[in-house]
């Protein structure tokens, strides 16, 4: 997997913005960094919101993401998710 530090800042910020809005955690936006753990760490992220998140990322970046691709490590950290999105964009 791509290391989260290699993700461009622009993509990271946009992914973060989508995550924050979809999970309704605007109040925590300032504290989120690439190493912030998502999966298992935010009660807001569940089987329903993950679908919303995928839909929102598809729309925002015009990319094709299958539900099946979002397993395990992709959602471990915010940086990891951004790296995944970046790999889809390029």
């Amino acid at each position: 997997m791509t290391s989260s530090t290699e993700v461009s800042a622009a993509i990271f910020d946009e992914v973060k913005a989508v995550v924050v809005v979809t999970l309704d955690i605007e109040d925590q936006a300032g504290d989120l960094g690439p190493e912030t753990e998502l999966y298992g760490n935010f009660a807001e992220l569940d089987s329903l919101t993950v679908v919303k998140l995928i839909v929102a990322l598809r729309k925002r970046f015009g990319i094709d993401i299958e539900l099946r691709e979002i397993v395990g490590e992709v959602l471990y950290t915010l940086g990891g998710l951004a790296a995944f999105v970046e790999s889809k964009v390029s």
Partner: protein
Amino acid sequence: MTTSRTRPFAEPRVSGHAFTPDDEKGTSGVLIQLPDLVARSAQRSPGAPALTSRRTTITYAELHERTELAAAGLRDLGLEGGERLAVFLDKRIETVVALLGCSRAGGVFVPVNPVLRPRQVRHILDDCAVRVLVTSTERLRSLRTELATCKSLSYVLVLGDPPAEDQDAPYRVLAWSEVAERASDAVCPPTGGVDTDVAAILYTSGSTGAPKGVVLSHRNLIVGAESVSAYLENTSEDRILAVLPLSFDAGLSQLTTGFCVGAHVVLADYLLPGDVVRLCAENHITGMVGVPPLWIQLAAETWPPEAVAGMRYFANTGGRLPRVTLQRLRATFPAAAPYLMYGLTEAFRSTYLDPREVDRRPDSIGKAIPNAEILVAREDGSLCGPGEPGELVHRGPLVALGYWNDAERTAQRFRPPPNRPVGLCTPELAVWSGDVVVRDEEGFLFFVGRRDDMIKTSGYRVSPQEIEEVAYETGLVHEAVALGLEDEALGHRVVLVVTPGNPAGFDPAAVTARLRQVLPRYMVPAEVIVRADMPRSPNGKLDRGFLRHELTAARPLHDRSGAAT
């Protein structure tokens, strides 16, 4: 982890009272505290894998060591015997170490379901006066407002870097690693406790009223571990996938039944059913326990051969598995034994069906698990005969110590068993489950329904499960819940709530038409309500109470509470 210790079991530095040295624990064969299960397995096979979380695996020796270190750290922090420590985390190695370390230090652990919202967490912390909370930095951030006025809390221990000190907070925030992972010679002295001491409080997700804290002793947990691992035939060769929340009796049992025999427990949180399939394949899982909504999802997944190959058993608890789902799972895992189980938190675990009986009695919850006695009682307290429905009563060493700080509800559920010999002068408490069951001539038990969920319509008593089973058999619905709603003419009006199997072109009338062919008229739902998804309890079970509440919400509150008897 680093440690400067050359011996795994150093002399305790606290002196002044006699105790058995720690390294004899396990060899004596007496299991007193929950962590003794781990100590014994560490003694027998220190290098065997105990626990995996994501990419990390630790051995039994390491788990034992980390438990001892955490216990010593918690004692140094000032956690007194019997004080409560809550853990609000997803499933990680630290989560398990926190539970075990608290226990080893003589504290009472309270696993909090990681999906709960801050207000519900606060309720639990207040209800049992939690002194130490273990959580993550992000979770603490979301809890901060609620915790600001939490009186009992002295410490919050966080994984990762503690956030900047909050001057107004009435508790101190420390890094978990500073407290529980210091390499030192400090060892937690034995607590001198007995196995009937309080070990844990599990909050049940009651759909009516606030959650209740079920108080479990070390004995409850140890007997449960031995009993369940015996009938599941767990061995040190097993690799158990722990998918259920650890705040749930069956969830905690995933750990204890593994540790009891030195099996390898793989911790799993999942967002999508595909995650579970992947974890089974990656870890060559041999056994797992699930609840019906999860099994319904998993039955619809594609299982690659490597995820199926090692599977020795699959077990269901927390509600009846629809027959079509059971059939699909048996086809998916042809070599695995299906275990149908029943348990209530108040008695940890209660019954299971011998897998060899599943073909003959796919609807049965089986018989009592080892070291439990299950009685079926009439309302007047006398025993029911075969074929006669009555309340399931569980007696034996699995019976919990009641509800925390709730004498009234404890007195309702925890009462003397019906068959207590008159000559015995001490009281015994059994759990009166509130579940209606019937026993057949051969002693097999069948779940009829929650006493509160039973539908009384046109003078008949109808089990919601009976209607739901037929709804599943139509193949048109994904999930189904039958409810009896108050009705002046009928007593109850039958309402079936479904999620469509195929949302496009779903016609509720088609379901009714099929039900009409199979069910007597009084059981046919007056109404079929279609929902996109079903409400779930935090433990992943279908939430009947929520649906009932939603469907009757138009009526005034005092009216509803009076109808729930």
